[in-house]
Every structure is written in C-alpha cells, then in structure tokens.
C-alpha cells in the first residue's frame, strides 16, 4: 500500500510531458521502491537519525570545498566551548561537533543535527571566549530550533526525493567504489547523501535563513551563553566586531548570509538585559582565548 501511495505521489509530482513523453516509468518506480526500502521519509518530516545524517553529509561536502584547520588544539578548544554551551540547550544529547575550517571568509554555519562549522577568518577576529561562545551559541540555537530543517522543508519541492538513487553523490559512491566510495557511503544513508547533494548544488550553504529565524537564534544565544556562565554580551560584542569590519566580504561570508550586524545589535538591545540579570559570575575569558587562538 505504501508503495502504491508513493508511486502516486511521484507521478503527481511529475510534469505531464514527463509522464507521457519518453519517460522511464519503471525507473521512477524502482527509485521510489528503493527509497522506501531504505526507510526514506518521502515526505517532509526528518527523523533525528536522518537529521544527523543530513548534517554529516552536508559537513562532509563542506569539508570537500574548504579544508579542515590543521590546528588540532584549536579544534579541541572550540569543541570544548561549544559542547559546554550545547549541554545547556534543549537538545543536549545530539552528537555536537564543532569544526574549524581554514578560510579567510568570515562566517559560521550550522548544519542540521548538531554540526557547526566556524571559519578561522572569524575566529582570529574575535577577542574573547565569550565572543566565541556568543557565535557558537547562535549556531547551536539554529540547530535547537531546527531552523535549517524548516528552511529545507519549506523549500522542498514535490520532487525533492525524486532523484534518490540517481544523483551525483550516489553515482560517485557507486562508480568510485573502493575505499573512497565506501567511506562516503558510511556517512549517511544513500537517500540522505542524495538529498544533501541536491541541497548543495542548490546553494544551501549560501542561502540566508529568514530574518525571524536569525532574530530567534540571536535571542536564544544570549540565553545559552548566560546559562553556561559566559558574559551575556559576548554575541553583541562579536556583532560589534562585524559592524566595525572593513574589508572584503565574499558571498559565503556573514555579510551576505545574515542581516546586518548593526540591525542585530539594535534588535538585541531590549532583550539582553532581561537575561543578563540572571548571570552570577559572568566570564569573558579573554586570556584563555588568546592562549588557544594564535
């Protein structure tokens, strides 16, 4: 029954000319069948397992475009700050991973499922651990609120899952075979790899979230920072750095993917003091930041 519904959905999603002109219906049915066999949602809801798999697949591709920083102690430091904050979130149990990429682009990215990427270009411009905490807390907040998933789901076309089993990524796994192909195959289920591949080709990493989501993430970031014992103003301070920044801004930078820092600071003004009042011994940790970021 599930398969019949699925095929009906797939057919409904196809343009008429595709249904009746030289179209390989057998292939579509086969693909659909494979997706169901693999447990594909074929709908708009992601299980937590799929969410994590999607985040891993997107992160793996990001790392294919931008190298991982080779500074292992920096990677561990950023993971400690991030994990400590994430432990005070509503999704503490996700496999939180914080990854520094080696690029001058100034930005941080949150993937579904708890994978956060932050650029070395941003890290070297921050001045304290509380600023880093503010930035990481903002990205953690996007994951906690499932903002990326919501954006993916709202932009999901009826044919989102149609390419399952046929996309470039799956082909690469199949054709590549050997160690590399099977390693990629380990990242996530094939239909998730495909979905990630489609999102990436569609410019997922470059697309801004809506303003309401950014504002929600900024506010939750302040809450998370205070819960974790950091200064409530770390994010505001990091935004001030961005507002002061003068230089090149590329399409993948925070200047292209986020509302202006000045607007974000202004939006936070009435909010921050309401949370800052709960802080007991808020820490800036400038010295520890400088020890760890060289």
């Amino acid at each position, binding site marked *: 029954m599930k398969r019949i519904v699925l095929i009906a959905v797939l057919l409904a999603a196809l343009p008429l000319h595709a249904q009746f002109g030289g179209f390989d219906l057998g292939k579509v049915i086969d693909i659909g069948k494979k997706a169901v066999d693999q447990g594909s949602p074929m709908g708009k809801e992601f299980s937590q397992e799929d969410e994590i798999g999607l985040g891993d*697949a997107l992160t793996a*591709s990001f*790392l294919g*475009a931008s*190298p*991982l920083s080779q500074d*292992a102690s920096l*990677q561990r430091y950023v*993971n*400690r700050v*991030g*994990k*400590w904050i994430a*432990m*005070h979130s*509503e999704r503490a149990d996700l*496999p939180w*991973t914080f*990854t520094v990429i080696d690029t*001058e*682009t100034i930005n941080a990215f949150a993937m579904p499922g708890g994978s956060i990427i932050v650029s070395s*270009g941003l890290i070297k411009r921050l*001045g*304290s651990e509380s600023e880093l905490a503010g930035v990481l807390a903002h990205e953690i907040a996007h994951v906690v609120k499932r903002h990326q998933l919501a954006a993916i789901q709202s932009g999901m076309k009826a044919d989102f899952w149609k390419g399952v089993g046929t996309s470039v*990524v799956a082909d690469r796994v199949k054709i590549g075979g050997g160690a*590399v192909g099977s*390693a990629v195959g*380990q*990242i996530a289920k094939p239909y998730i*790899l495909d979905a990630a591949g489609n999102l*990436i*080709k569609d410019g997922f*990493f470059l697309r801004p979230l809506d303003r309401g989501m950014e504002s929600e993430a900024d*506010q939750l970031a302040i*809450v998370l920072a205070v819960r974790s*014992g950091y200064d409530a*103003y770390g994010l*505001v*301070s990091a935004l*001030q750095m961005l507002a*002061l*920044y*003068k230089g*090149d801004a*590329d*399409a*993948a*930078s925070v200047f*292209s*993917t986020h509302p*202006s820092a*000045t607007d974000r*600071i202004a939006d*936070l003004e009435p*909010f921050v003091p309401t*949370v800052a009042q*709960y802080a*007991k*011994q808020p*820490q800036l940790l400038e010295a520890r930041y400088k020890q760890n970021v060289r």
Partner: protein
Amino acid sequence: MPAMTPRALAFVLALLLAPFAWAEEQAFTNRATDLRERGSNDARVIATLPEKTEVRVLARGGGWTQVDAAGKSGWVNVFHLRFPTTVDSKSSGGGNPFSSVTSFLGGGRQTEKKATIATTGIRGLSPEDLKNAAPDAAALAKAHSYRADKPTAERFAREGKLSAVSVDNPQGERR
C-alpha cells in the same frame, strides 16, 4: 638614498596603515551617553557625549566598549554606538575613502536582501566550490575525532570558572 632604519620603516608603515586602522575603529554615539571611567553603571562619569559624537573604538567586552572621544578615553554602553554606514552621510565625513567599501557591508538601514558580493582577492570560500563540493569522508571523520565529551567539557568549564545558571528561555521551550 640611505637605507631606512627599522624604526623609520615602522613609522612609515604605521602612517600607511593608519587610515585602515582608523576605518576599523570608527563609530558614533547613537544617542547622548555617558563616557565612564570603567565599564560599569557605578563608574565615575568622565563626560557626557552628545548624539553623533565621533569616537574611536579601543576595546570591546562585557556590555561596554572602550572608546577614545576627542582625546578622552573611557567606556560607553555597547548599545549606544553606531557605525559609519548607519550614520547620516553628513556626519560620517563626506570624503570617506571607504564609503564604497562600507556600503556593501550592509548598513543598519539596508533592508534589501544583500546582493552577492564578488570575492576580491581574499582567500575565501567561492560559491562555485561550495556548490560543487564532493563529500570528504576522511575530513569528516577527523572532525568527529575532535569532539569533546561531557566530562571534558565540564572540566574545561571548571577551569574557566564557568558555572551553569538556570535561565528560562523567554521564547518558551520547544519541547
């Protein structure tokens, strides 16, 4: 021409770099605000700065920003500053050589969707690379190897005197 001494060279370099340094530090008060001796509401008021006072940012931290206002150094509330692209062009000093740079960085009044900005010579991420990225499973595995577990994060927090505080999320919990 005699060779330049290191000190003279440093001086020339400082002069050359000065405008860049200045552009990165320039701000204006967005309302009348107190310039205080320290970053605290209890600290002594050094001066009251009128709205649109030009200042130079010296340091950031803890809800306060250290500035230099016409030779007087002190701290102002972090929310009481605006940055060049968000002040009226008259008060931002008409001949600002960085106006073309600052405008595309997105000012406070920019409401349009930010345009895609061409990368001009920095070693950043290119949109093409990000769209054509192939998954690197080995790099992902390495990234996972840097994860911190709970006891490590707790120890790290203790070392930094970070103590957890209970704060409700004013937005309400999702779950």
